[in-house]
């Protein structure tokens, strides 16, 4: 946690925020550094300074103000710290002292800054008339809405973690006697809650403590990337990835390579659609000798899944299953088995979870690693499949008079269930949301809701009450979702006081002091964590579980979620789209993941277009060869192909396969059953289509060619020799020149590859901090992504022997390596710049003066790490849609066309802190300073600091046996150290 004085002092005055004004014209530094600037004779363009009439005391020009807030969404609460400059939020950061997140935030939350300044947002409420929407006044809109809400009213929304919003909604439902349908687009939460309800009678989502488990087994649950709370889980998981201190072990059984599978110490590739078989097989192995071994209910179901059957169905060798079971038995009470995610969606909701519960019960993990106290979600408020089907039937029958869609996109999310057709039969559809989506375009009335940075709201999860406070006045004529529902419910007052009231219940006080403290901290712990777990499972719950007991034939498709886009609700965001998927490295598209062996057999290659046919769906989709898949398993990410995604600037989506669409709607392939949706093992056919396609693939090479870039060792070997897995070229002699002394500060960045999960949070955080432009699919196809820090991903083998053994590329080592400018002491780039635009500073930074750069790109060529980026076109200027310019960081020059840019080690942060320290007559300290990537890493893999000071954490890490620098043989002397990965292979 940065003990930021400003943070503490400024936070207390936030409740006066209503005064905060969006008044001062923000003069964004548009770095069109005209040639005229170098000639004395030409005057710079006229610039106006407009001061406040009355400057609010907490808005100090030139000094950032930080607000603690929370992003409340249907996946949970993301505690955030919002950095504002001159009244504008410019950067989202994690809230470091938050009890459960501890500062962890995933990339998709960093990207929300562009949701706020999205030009595609609704600017006003909209009324439909004659097929087009016209702007409306709020009073009219509310009056009209009230008049529409008659008869049979239905409300559809996703789940909510906000107690205030829920209670407002309740008031609304009561007033109109409406029925509320809650659905889960991905299904992970619903599967979990329903499964638990079946097993324990308690439909809650428990609190997982990954940091307490020595052995974690995940079956299809991508808990580091997409499952339930990846940010929190990543923090917990990575805290145990220290090979010197009781390192944990992760075993993942999954069909499609996920972020979690990529980080597994042992990954068992199972065939698509067979995860329940695997779970049952595991349960069978574990059952003997346990307290539940006598249960006939269980034995009846489990007995069929012998290791041999499991091997036949899933492809996992029987011996592997048995040894995993033995390992789990040995780690009783210290282990955790999780399962779920979109892929686990079953025709009977919660099937996998029931088996998982059985396993955890056998292993006595409840109350030890899985807790019901301070649970993630206390109740199962999801509507059952029957209720949902009933609603659709009702709608189709024309029995629904008014449908209120509360910040959801059911037309897309439930496309396989025919919601799109059904909604046409509804007389009046009222849509509450920020921007258009597939559902909003069917609405008669659109009530424009505010972004979370403009709204009051709250949330509760894991025993923590969090508040969401506005940090900027509404940019457009919008209202917070709470206010809209309040107005529709006909209640007096505003949502702010409503939240205040709700908070007082948690705070146990209505005093201003407690409220102010809540605003300053952003959270309040109302329920202490306790070691309380589920009781024993109900053995009969398992009897309904069915799983394939024979191998599934033909191509089998799994629907998965991608880290960047998730369910796609916030897909209209260039940061999310441009962040390469950590696994496939594809941007701006979802792709069909195909196993290497199948691709080889069929003669397919990455980028080919495949016509994928399912029961009700047919799409054309580009393919990507993905190691780690069984031969006939295929994966396709959900969340793409939505209406709002076509709304980007032209240049970003140039060359879409289908004009106006970004990716394809994978949900169409899901199979609808009376009791659930089947998202896995869907039988499909795939044929290659002869089409040229420019796939925005950020990394095209799979292997690191034994170059020891990302290094890995087995824990056993590491214990014997900490330098295991390393290889260094020997450099002899002292070199020709005397080295520069670099006294004073000397900055060094350390990246612990053992902690890094590859989630790409650093990438998005860096984009947001450093005004990095997004360039779009075609430019990325050309190889022109602009990321200053990129996440390299490799699939490799520890030895040639292993490589030969694994011909199908099922179990490669997956490496993630965040790569950024190495700030080499002997930087090859500096030598070759003819105009001295890049040179070394006294504190060891490789500096880049954009305004001196003429763009020879020689430096980019001569960089062995290839981390320099060139502005091939004018990336800002006209391409910036108002009000996106406000998202830019005013401390970082916006680069014009024709100049090189690269990681600066966040020199603006260094400069700010250095100047601050100088004004305060002290030395710049380690606590002062964090780079954007460091702060953006939920896994704490990145450390930054002064290596000349022996006491700092980086100087200690630099001396660690695992630390190494890459491409040393060129004698660049990088100032970035990596710490090798250690795999805990049983």
């Amino acid at each position, binding site marked *: 946690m940065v003990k930021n004085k400003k943070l503490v002092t400024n936070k207390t005055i936030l409740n006066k925020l209503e005064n905060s004004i969006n008044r001062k014209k923000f003069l964004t530094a548009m*770095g069109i550094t005209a040639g005229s600037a170098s000639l004395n004779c030409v005057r710079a363009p006229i610039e106006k300074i407009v*001061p406040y009439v009355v400057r609010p005391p907490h808005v100090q020009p030139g000094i950032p103000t930080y607000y603690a807030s929370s992003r409340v969404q249907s996946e949970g609460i993301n505690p955030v710290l919002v950095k504002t400059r001159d009244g504008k939020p410019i950067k989202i950061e994690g809230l470091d002292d938050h009890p459960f997140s501890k500062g962890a935030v995933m990339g998709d939350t960093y990207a929300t800054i562009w949701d706020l300044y999205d030009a595609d947002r609704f600017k006003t409420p909209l009324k439909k008339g004659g097929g087009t929407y016209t702007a409306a006044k709020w009073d009219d809109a509310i009056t009209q809405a009230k008049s529409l809400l008659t008869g049979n009213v239905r409300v559809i929304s996703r789940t909510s973690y906000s107690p205030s919003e829920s209670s407002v909604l309740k008031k609304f439902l009561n007033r109109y006697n409406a029925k509320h349908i809650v659905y889960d687009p991905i299904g992970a939460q619903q599967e979990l809650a329903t499964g638990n309800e079946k097993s324990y009678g308690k439909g809650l989502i428990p609190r997982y403590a990954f940091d307490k488990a020595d052995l974690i087994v995940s079956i299809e649950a991508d808990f580091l990337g997409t499952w339930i709370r990846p940010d929190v889980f990543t923090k917990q998981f990575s805290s145990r990835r220290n090979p010197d201190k009781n390192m944990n072990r992760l075993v993942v059984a999954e069909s499609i390579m996920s972020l979690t599978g990529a980080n597994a110490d042992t990954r068992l590739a199972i065939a698509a659609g067979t995860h329940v078989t695997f779970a049952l097989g595991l349960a069978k192995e574990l059952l003997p000798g346990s307290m539940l071994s006598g249960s006939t209910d269980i034995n009846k179901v489990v007995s069929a899944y012998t290791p041999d059957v499991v091997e036949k169905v899933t492809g996992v060798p029987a011996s592997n299953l048995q040894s995993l079971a033995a390992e789990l038995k040995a780690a009783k009470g210290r282990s955790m088995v999780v399962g779920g995610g979109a892929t686990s969606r079953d025709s009977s909701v919660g099937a996998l979870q029931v088996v998982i519960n059985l396993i955890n019960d056998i292993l006595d993990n409840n109350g030890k690693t899985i807790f019901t106290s301070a649970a993630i979600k206390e109740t199962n408020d999801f509507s059952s499949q029957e209720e949902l089907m009933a609603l659709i039937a009702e709608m189709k029958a024309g029995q629904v008079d008014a449908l209120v869609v509360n910040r959801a996109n059911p037309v897309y999310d439930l496309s396989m269930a025919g919601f799109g057709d059904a909604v046409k039969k509804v007389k009046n559809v009222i849509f509450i949301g920020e921007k258009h989506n597939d559902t909003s375009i069917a609405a008669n009335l659109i009530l424009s809701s505010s972004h979370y940075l403009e709204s009051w709201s709250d949330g509760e999860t894991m025993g923590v009450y969090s508040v969401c406070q506005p940090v900027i006045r509404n940019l457009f004529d919008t209202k917070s979702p709470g206010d809209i529902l309040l107005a529709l419910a006909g209640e007096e007052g505003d949502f702010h006081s409503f939240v205040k009231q709700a908070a007082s219940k948690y705070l146990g006080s209505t005093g201003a002091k407690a409220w102010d403290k809540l605003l300053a901290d952003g959270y309040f712990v109302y329920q202490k964590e306790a070691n309380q777990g589920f009781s024993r499972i109900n053995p009969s719950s398992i009897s309904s579980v069915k799983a394939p007991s024979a191998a599934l034939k033909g191509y089998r498709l799994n629907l998965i979620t991608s880290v960047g886009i998730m369910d796609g609700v916030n897909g209209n965001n260039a940061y999310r789209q441009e962040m390469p998927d950590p696994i496939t490295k594809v941007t701006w598209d979802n792709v069909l993941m195909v196993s290497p062996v199948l691709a080889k057999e069929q003669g397919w290659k990455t980028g080919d277009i495949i016509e994928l046919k399912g029961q009700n769906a047919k799409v054309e989709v580009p393919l990507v060869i993905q190691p780690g898949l069984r031969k006939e398993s295929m994966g396709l990410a959900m969340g793409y192909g939505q209406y709002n995604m076509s709304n980007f600037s032209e240049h970003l989506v140039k060359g879409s396969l289908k004009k106006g669409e970004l990716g394809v709607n994978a949900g169409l392939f899901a199979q609808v059953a009376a009791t659930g949706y089947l998202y896995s093992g869907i039988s499909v056919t795939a044929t290659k289509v002869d089409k040229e396609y420019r796939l925005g693939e950020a990394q095209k090479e799979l292997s690191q060619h034994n170059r020891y870039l990302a290094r890995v060792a087995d824990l056993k070997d590491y214990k014997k020799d900490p330098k295991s897995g390393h290889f260094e070229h020997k450099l002899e002699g002292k070199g020709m020149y005397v080295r520069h002394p670099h006294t004073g500060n000397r900055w060094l960045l350390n990246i612990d590859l053992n902690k890094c999960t590859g989630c790409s949070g650093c990438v998005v955080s860096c984009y947001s901090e450093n005004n990095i432009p997004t360039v779009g699919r075609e430019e990325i196809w050309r190889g022109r992504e602009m990321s200053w820090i990129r996440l390299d991903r490799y699939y490799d083998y520890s030895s040639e022997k292993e490589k030969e053994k694994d011909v199908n590329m099922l179990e490669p080592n997956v490496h993630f390596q965040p790569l950024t400018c190495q700030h080499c002491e002997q930087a090859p780039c500096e030598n070759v710049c003819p105009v001295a635009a890049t040179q070394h*500073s006294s504190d060891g930074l490789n500096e880049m003066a954009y305004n001196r750069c003429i763009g020879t790109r020689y430096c980019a060529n001569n960089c062995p790490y290839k981390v320099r980026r060139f502005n091939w076109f004018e990336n800002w200027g006209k391409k910036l849609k108002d009000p996106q310019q406000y998202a830019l960081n005013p401390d970082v020059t916006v680069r014009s066309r024709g100049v090189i840019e690269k990681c600066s080690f966040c020199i*603006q942060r260094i400069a700010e802190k250095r100047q*601050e320290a100088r*004004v305060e007559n002290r030395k710049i300290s380690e606590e002062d300073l964090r780079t954007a990537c460091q702060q953006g890493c939920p896994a704490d893999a990145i450390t930054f600091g002064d290596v000349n000071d022996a006491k700092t954490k980086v100087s200690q890490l630099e001396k660690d046996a695992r630390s190494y620098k890459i491409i040393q043989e060129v004698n660049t002397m990088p100032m970035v150290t990596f710490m090798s990965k250690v795999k805990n292979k049983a």
Partner: protein
Amino acid sequence: MKKAPKIIITVLVVLGLGWLFFGPAKQIGYAPDQPFAYSHLTHAGKYQIDCQYCHSTVSYSKSAGIPGVNVCMNCHRAVLGLSGTAKKDANKRIMDLYSNYWEKKKAPEWVRIHNMPDHVRFSHAPHIKALLKPGQESKTACIRCHGDVAQMEVVSQVESLNMGFCLNCHREYEKDGGRTNCGACHH
């Protein structure tokens, strides 16, 4: 003299190019029309108001801070510009301030005079720290770049504020933290 025109042309071309690159910057003497006729001469000169009274954030922020109208009103609620011969004129100005700005809740749109290019990151605070000796008037520090504003009825730019100007000073103050790295100002 046949050679005369040749020589004259050559000299003119050289001088012209020299003027382009080394001539006094056009910025010097830049004194645009401001929306409101505020006089530094009166406030800072005659009444010796310290710079930091109005430019209050200068010692700790990047920006010196253009005062809001409320800062003017701190005094001008009471003081109506009563002194000397300029009384009438001063009154007019204060009436302008009252009626056109304060009451309309409007801030004057000042034209920036000391306008750094977009690729320069300048922060006032460390400069004040280095230049302002303890116990002295703020003016002693400000004067270095802004000239003696206290003597200006209409503020104009006095120094070129080009990179050479900055560097000269940074070299002089190297011991006080003046940096000559490019990244000190360009990032």
